[in-house]
């Protein structure tokens, strides 16, 4: 994680603003978006009306009705507050983003078709249109999202990535996309504008963190249907209770029925649901990943298969020397020295890695003056050989067949040890390089794709999450298999073309799997679009960024693990709080039911297992607990229930224990404590 935003869980300024926000959200047109809270608001208004009526007519029990009404309003306010806090944290982040977008002036080229003509006119960045070509020079801010069509420049993208090291943007290839609001540090580029103000990447990011354009995600929608349904069911239960109680001559007041209803309907999860959703998006952005929709974040939690590029993700991207294997009669040190000398003039990564290995492991000497002045034969793609001629020695290293030809040795006549070493390296997926001196073969250098150090653990973590990893590479199947087993991926796709990737994704999807993939190149775009979760790299092309449904600002493909975790966390938090909310109802029944009927049937006092002081204090305590629990759970809603990659069954057992059983037990204790307080203060 390269950037952790430093907004504290409860920032003072955010809390103050959220307190006002909570009151503003009482407006019916806002409340109606949340059915559970809307019902609570309506009955709170009803209780208030009864309170006012009783106050006017001088009816008894006014204090009780008043307190119930007040706490019902608090229930709604607390829920609004939770949402406002979550939004406030997003807003704080959006403001930070907005500050980076200073009002810039674009240099719009008048004759973009003529590469020689650099005549431009100034235009406010807000007025730039799609298709305009703008010139951006050192020190200028890029006015809009676009694609570099000419030139090369280093760009500071810290405004959106938080990463201060500049990145190179150039025309053509995979590094041609630039983002509005970032600053060119050196040189110049011409940019064709692809998105205008309002729909640019930065705008989308701001809208997302502010939650302004937030739509309910599919799963959130399904959950709110369940919550509304439960509210309806409890409405039936409570409304019919009036009639059933009437049978035994008990007349239940509207106030107590309203209190019973609100404690039964799932206000806890209903009140925190949207806060959980906003906080989930917020967490993702703190993680430097921008999702185009909440739907994609949810889908990330469901991913079964992850397609991941080998180069740069699983391996370092270049083949590196890992061992020297001498033929009999040659010492390892001798071979290392020869290889070292032969590679001094080889500036390829492979050549440098041979030098590094020889220095590190065999402490090859610094080249003597004589050697340094000797004639170096640089590596070329044609000869596939590099080497050195000095002091009558002619040392070469290079591809096995090229060296054999150079030394004039037939492979059949080479020593069995040499042939064995070459075969073994090839079979293990590595590349053998031969080293010769004159006509004598000295041995073999083992070059291989080096797997990144902790990547295996990352894949093991994914397997524990139930995600299958598939490595995609252009290597031949033998090499691919060797690296796949070393890195611990579950499967690989060798000699893969972009079409192969797309076809693979389609077949896996046909088998009912959800696929995630990372990509950065334009040729990845179709596969990114086809995948259920397509994470494009910020360093990638505009086409890739448009095709994916998430953009990783750090351009780190293994981040998909964290993205998946955030998706899972989002769903887990909802599920856990729903379970908690429903389990809470059991205790509330034991508080309220005896209180309602103890006057008619004193025997029902047996059900008052908590030993609550009076019927009024029992009902009031249940309502107060119901309101306070929302506040108590705001931190959990914002932080999310922690995810552990231990498999679904273990996770379920753990969460059922905490939120299911905990939800059953906690309110018995909580209501009792509130009741002690209520009766001590003489409130009821």
């Amino acid at each position, binding site marked *: 994680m390269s950037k952790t935003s430093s907004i504290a869980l409860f920032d003072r300024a955010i809390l103050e603003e959220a307190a006002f926000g909570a009151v503003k959200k009482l407006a019916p047109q806002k409340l109606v978006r949340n059915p559970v809270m809307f019902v609570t608001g309506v009955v709170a208004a009803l209780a208030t009306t009864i309170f006012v009526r009783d106050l006017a007519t001088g009816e008894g029990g006014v204090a009780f009705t008043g307190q119930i009404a007040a706490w019902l309003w608090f229930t709604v306010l607390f829920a609004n507050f939770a949402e406002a806090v979550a939004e406030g944290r997003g807003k704080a982040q959006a403001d930070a983003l907005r500050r980076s977008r200073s009002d810039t002036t674009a240099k719009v080229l008048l004759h973009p078709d003529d590469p020689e003509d650099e005549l431009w006119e100034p235009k406010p960045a807000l007025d730039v249109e799609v298709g305009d070509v703008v010139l951006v020079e050192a020190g200028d801010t890029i006015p809009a999202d676009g694609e570099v069509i000419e030139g090369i420049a280093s760009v500071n993208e810290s405004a959106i990535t938080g990463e201060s090291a500049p990145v190179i943007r150039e025309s053509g290839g995979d590094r041609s996309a630039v983002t509005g609001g970032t600053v060119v540090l050196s040189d110049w580029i011409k940019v064709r504008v692809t998105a205008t103000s309002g729909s640019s990447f930065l705008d989308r990011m701001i809208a997302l963190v502010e939650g302004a354009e937030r739509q309910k995600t599919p799963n959130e929608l399904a959950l709110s249907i369940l919550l509304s349904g439960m509210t309806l069911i409890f409405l039936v*239960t409570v409304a019919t209770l009036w009639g059933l109680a009437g049978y035994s001559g008990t007349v239940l007041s509207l106030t107590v029925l309203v209190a019973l209803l609100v404690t039964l309907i799932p206000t806890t999860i209903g009140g925190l649901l949207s806060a959980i959703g906003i906080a989930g998006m917020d967490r993702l952005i703190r993680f430097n990943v921008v999702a185009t929709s909440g739907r994609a974040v949810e889908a990330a939690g469901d991913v079964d298969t992850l397609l991941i590029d080998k180069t740069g993700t699983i391996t370092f991207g270049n083949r590196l020397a890992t061992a020297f294997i001498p033929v009999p009669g040659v010492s390892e040190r001798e071979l290392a020295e020869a290889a070292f000398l032969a590679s001094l003039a080889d500036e390829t990564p492979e050549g440098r890695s041979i030098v590094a290995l020889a220095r590190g492991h065999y402490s090859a000497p610094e080249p003597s003056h004589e050697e340094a002045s000797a004639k170096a034969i640089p590596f070329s793609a044609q000869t596939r050989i590099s080497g050195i001629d000095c002091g009558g020695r002619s040392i070469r290293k290079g591809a096995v067949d090229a060296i054999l030809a150079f030394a004039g040795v037939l492979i059949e006549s080479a020593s069995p040890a040499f042939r064995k070493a070459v075969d073994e390296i090839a079979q293990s997926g590595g590349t053998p390089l031969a080293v010769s001196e004159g006509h004598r073969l000295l041995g073999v250098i083992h070059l291989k794709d080096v797997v990144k150090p902790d990547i295996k653990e990352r894949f093991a973590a994914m397997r524990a999450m139930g995600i299958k990893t598939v490595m995609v590479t252009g290597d031949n199947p033998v090499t691919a298999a060797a690296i796949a087993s070393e890195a611990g991926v579950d499967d690989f796709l060798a000699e893969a073309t972009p079409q192969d990737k797309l076809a693979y994704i389609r077949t896996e999807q046909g088998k009912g799997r959800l696929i995630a993939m990372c990509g950065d190149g334009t040729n990845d775009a179709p596969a990114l679009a086809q995948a259920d979760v397509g994470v494009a790299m910020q360093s990638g092309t505009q086409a890739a960024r448009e095709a994916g449904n998430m953009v990783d600002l750090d351009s780190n493909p293994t981040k998909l693990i964290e993205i998946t975790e955030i998706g899972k*966390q989002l769903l*887990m938090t909802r599920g856990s709080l729903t379970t908690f909310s429903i389990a809470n109802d059991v205790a509330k029944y034991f508080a309220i039911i005896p209180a309602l009927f103890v006057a008619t049937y004193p025997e029902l006092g047996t059900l008052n297992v908590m030993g609550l002081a009076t019927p009024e204090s029992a009902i009031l305590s249940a309502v107060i607990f119901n309101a306070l629990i929302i506040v108590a759970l705001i931190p959990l809603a914002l932080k999310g229930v922690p995810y552990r990659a231990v498999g679904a069954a273990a*996770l379920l057992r753990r969460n059922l224990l905490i939120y299911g059983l905990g939800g059953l037990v906690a309110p018995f204790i909580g209501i009792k404590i509130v009741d002690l307080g209520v009766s001590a203060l003489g409130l009821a």
Partner: protein
Amino acid sequence: MTLDGWLEIALVLGAVLIAARPLGLYMARVLQGERTLLAPVLRPLERRLYSAAGIDAGKEQGWLAYTLAMLAFSAAGFLVLYVLMRLQASLPLNPQGFAGVPPDLAFNTALSFVTNTNWQSYAGETTMAHIVQMAGLTVQNFVSAATGIALAAAVTRAFARSGSATIGNFWVDMTRATLYVLLPLSIVVALAYVMSGVPQTLLASTGVTTLEGAKQTLSLGPVASQEAIKQLGTNGGGFFNANAAHPFENPNAWSNMLSIWSMLVVSAAMTFAFGRMVGDARQGHALLAAMGILLVAAVALVYGAEAAGNPILAKLGIDASAGNLEGKEIRFGQALTALYIAATTGLSCGAVNAMHDSLTPLGGLAPMFLMQLGEILPGGVGSGLYGMIVMAILAVFVAGLMVGRTPEYLGKKIEAREMKLAILALLILPFAILGFAAASAVMPSALESLANAGPHGLSEILYAYSSAAGNNGSAFAGLNANTPWYNTTLGLAMLLGRFAYVVPVMAIAGSLAAKRKIAPSAGTFPTHGGLFVGLLVGVILILGGLQYFPSLALGPVVEHFLMQSGKTF
């Protein structure tokens, strides 16, 4: 409670389990159209039926067509039955010369049998002519049960298939369930009943002179055959008013065990058929385990409460060691009566071998709560399975989120549409049970039907609507339900409980069948094994408890506390 008693219970339940597995696997073959042992005999008959009715057995239906076919079939069944009852006076096979059945009773009874409820506001032996019993009631006993099996098969296919627009053919499923499953089984069971002394005759009642020299009329009729399908199809509508407590319906301990076995066996078998059809036997076992745990818990509650008896009697110095025997047949004993009570209400059977009105308050709470849970433990033939699947979907939705994935059941994602429909189905029961019960509780005219005052009277009303909406059909008695208000509202409750419930369930099936089946992985929430069974049991209890606790508190619960403190009504 005695060890012997529990052994008797274990014996019957064990016999059910042993028979349910092969029966379930056989049913799966039948419902999947595979060849079975009975095919040589029944296949030609089946084909002839299709060609006579003009049905293309190879053509499958989507959920809507399937549901409409089912509704049309049930509506036709209702009309035929209604007309038969109204006109029975002028029809043959009416040796007693019974008059036509009055409209509200005919409406109630026709609905009652079409919905597989078999609520009887009348005494069978003195109201219904043989023609109605045989051509009307018994036919519905078969086809309403077969309809349940067909619906369950359609819902099961929704999980078994991937990306399918169709879920089977109602006419084919219904015909096969009748021909291959219910008919052969009831012939065997009817013969077993005849062996244990149940009459099977077309004669009218006979007069006999008792030992004391008094004249007594013995009602006779085709009892054994009706008894067989009444139990197997979880119908529960007895030939006699006393139902399975009557010595001609249930003469001895053996017939009692057979009676319990035969009402449980098909519903239990459905879970095995489910497991086979979705390709994972463990999924069926998990559902059956959840059903079994709750059923045995209910048996324990009834058995415990009844064996403990009434403390008021004990205080009067009466030996109460035999427990509460009021309303019970001594030939069945406490244990198997308790099992019968739990089974008949855990199923939507509704046959009774004891007077439920005479149960202790807690003993009466158990059957009432079982019905309010929606008749899923193990529920009526077919209807129990699809009811349980709705609960499983709900459990998976709430708990499935806790493992951090979009909830899925058997590889099918549970999304907004399924949730909406499941909620719609779930709303029906509290609406029908609590709504009508609350209305009756405040209507003076409705309260006149009550035989008892106090909380027990409320229990009688609650029980009646729970029974009707759950399509059970058993009665607490004590409530004279043969009034226009009760006949009509109970009829409506039955109608809602069956059809208003099943339409959204079928829509869920249609929506799930069309979805692609998702391959399971280590991150998939497992829906077999102990954890899921426990979760399912918890969800059923908490959800059911939350809906009905207040009403139960005012009925049986407070009655229990009152009894403890020495008060009666």
